[in-house]
């Protein structure tokens, strides 16, 4: 089963455990500055929103890369950056409409979410279930269930 990261912003508290887990997984340090997932806080409304690459089926980054350094991992569906091939031209960072692929000055390459070989550290670290890694074909299932529950209540009401 193909899985994808699923984000429910309403559950996010802004703790940044996901950012630390990401940097620890990829660089062995606790460093939100190197995280591929970022949590945005909108203080006027009190909202916190985690955001990262959604692994487009037809990925802008992949298509834009002039040296074919970005390829799709068939088992996870993740767009992978081959660091040995990447020349750090940053064209992919321009092409991506979402800003989720970024240049890393330290390495001279770009980085993006690679789904941690199918076991994303951010989802493991999230204490509230705001980030989960679930069936890519059913990411709406919990919302459907919630709305179904409302119908169920209505139906139960009619039966009384």
């Amino acid at each position, binding site marked *: 089963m193909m899985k994808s990261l699923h984000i429910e912003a309403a559950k996010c*508290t*802004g703790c*940044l*455990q996901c950012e630390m887990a990401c940097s620890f997984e990829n660089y062995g340090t606790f*460093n939100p500055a190197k995280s591929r997932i970022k949590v945005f806080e909108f*203080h006027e*409304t*009190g909202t916190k929103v985690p955001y990262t690459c959604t692994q487009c089926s037809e990925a802008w980054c992949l298509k834009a890369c002039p040296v074919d350094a970005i390829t799709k991992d068939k088992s996870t569906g993740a767009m992978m950056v081959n660091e040995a091939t990447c020349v750090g031209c940053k064209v992919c960072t321009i092409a991506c409409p979402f800003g989720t692929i970024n240049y890393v000055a330290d390495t001279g390459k770009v980085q993006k979410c690679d789904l941690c070989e199918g076991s994303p550290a951010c989802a493991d670290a999230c204490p509230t279930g705001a980030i989960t890694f679930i069936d890519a074909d059913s990411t709406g299932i919990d919302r459907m269930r919630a709305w179904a529950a409302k119908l169920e209540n209505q139906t139960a009401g009619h039966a009384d």
Partner: protein
Amino acid sequence: MAWQRKILRVDLTAGTCTSEPLNMEWAKIYLGQRGLATKYFVEEVAPSVEPMSPANKLIFATGPLTGTMASTGGRYSVITKGPLTGAIACSNSGGYWGAELKMAGWDMVIFEGRAASPVYLHIENDTATLHDASALWGKTTWDVEPALRKIHQDSQLKISSIGRAGENGVLYAAVINDLHRAAGRSGVGAVMGSKNLKAIAVRGTKGVAGVKDPKAFMKATQAAKAVLAGNAVTGEGLPKFGTQVLMNVINEVGAMPTRNFRDVQFEGAKDISAEAMHAPRESDGKANLVTNQACFGCTIACGRISKLDQTHYTVVNKPEYWGASGGLEYEAAWALGSANGVNDLEALTYANFVCNEDGFDPISFGATVGAVMELYQMGVLTKEQLGIEAPFGSAKALTYFAECTAKGEGFGPEIGLGSKRLTAKYGHPDLSMTVKGQEFPAYDPRGIQGMGLAYATSNRGACHLRGYTVASEVLGIPIKTDPLETEGKAGLVKAFQDATAVFDSAGICVFTSFAWTLADVAPQLDAACEGDWSLDNLNMVGERIWNMERQFNNAAGFTAKDDNLPKRLLTEAAKTGPAKGLVAGLDKMLPEYYAERGWDTEGRPTAATVERLGL
């Protein structure tokens, strides 16, 4: 190694920033943050120093777990000699700033001297520079944060700053970071203002690398997070209700100080409780509470984010207060509410916003207003002096005083003195509900006896965060004790005080101690840090820190006479509730406490104690 092993020394008089290696010999016996920064402070500053003078120093310190995946690992403390008390001051804050400082590669920043004109410090990893802050002086913390991000064209800057209260020398001015997190108590913001230091803006992209044993550390922190998640207080009560979960509980046990401690129960408690924050308002159908929020690394998320009712008298036509911001925690709800007999939730929330915006401690402010209202009821202070009628229960007086104190206008500068100086000035020093000059928090020691001893002996003046025996006496953590009993409380207070000193020195939040004991902290520290962080040694570290602070205070002129409570709590019995007829039984606990501590009858650590602790 979880320390960055580097400190930044900023000489404000000379205008220089220099890097020094962290003293690792001290780190291995004082851990970090509160303990380690206090060690630096007592080594470098004379106990007799005038708090608002250039000779005083101001230290911003992180702990070894700050900026790691340990739950709540985002704390920092501000250490100085406090102007409200004249004692050691150490105020702890969450938010994101502390972790950012650590990520920039620094364990702490030591400020010394005084700048000739307003400055702010900008830190970008290894580079630290002082800049002119003339254009920021007079601005609130809410204006300073976006202004600095714009100046440096860096939306990711984290900022701690003072508002006008810190500039104006309000003696309980706070340091505010991330808009509404505060190093709140004892006037650390006033010291910052006295140094002409407006803000510290930090961007750190280096991270925290090289914890001692990464695999063991991840395992230990995951186990500890599971303990927090599975605990009724940290896993359910705090995320849902915040510390406000306590409002109705403490009122029921008859330990809710009300109207300047005249009463121990507040008839309006339900109106300002967590439940009230959740309930839809009559005016707009929306709840005061918008959401909860975590600080850096925190898997509890007790923070409150609130929105005001736009039709409330405090904010009509003031859209700058209509956005979501830091809502009421229990201590603020009590101090702004019960302490003054005010039950208007929106007024309290507004006053709390103002405290954050201009940087002052809502506990000391609210408790001082309580004393002002009592003086008004007695006819000692008049409407002409105050600028408003101020009987107990007046929300309008409370919010007016908050604005005056923030801006330094009208009667505000008098309220900014704190209740000890204010009541003395108007001839009624007995009405000041303080220890060592600092106002009480939200637990009446007549109804929770152990807290009387905890207040009397707290090294930073009356405080709930130095030994929170409420956990045991009311909540049964780790074991239930009788709140009306004095017996056994000396040992309990000592145990809480010593353990808390470790939590405060590790870089984690003391609220974890609702679920964690030091046995949960030890494996995390041990995996992160070189040295001996066994449970036994941690207990010793906590006791060592406590005694170091005590020695500083003793040398600064405090004696056993200052380990006291106001006359009201010792002679006027509780009128209602389970504690009806009781006064605070401090005299029954204090001698035993001194003995437990290994102090002489004057409250001084004996030579044997000093030697045992390696002080």
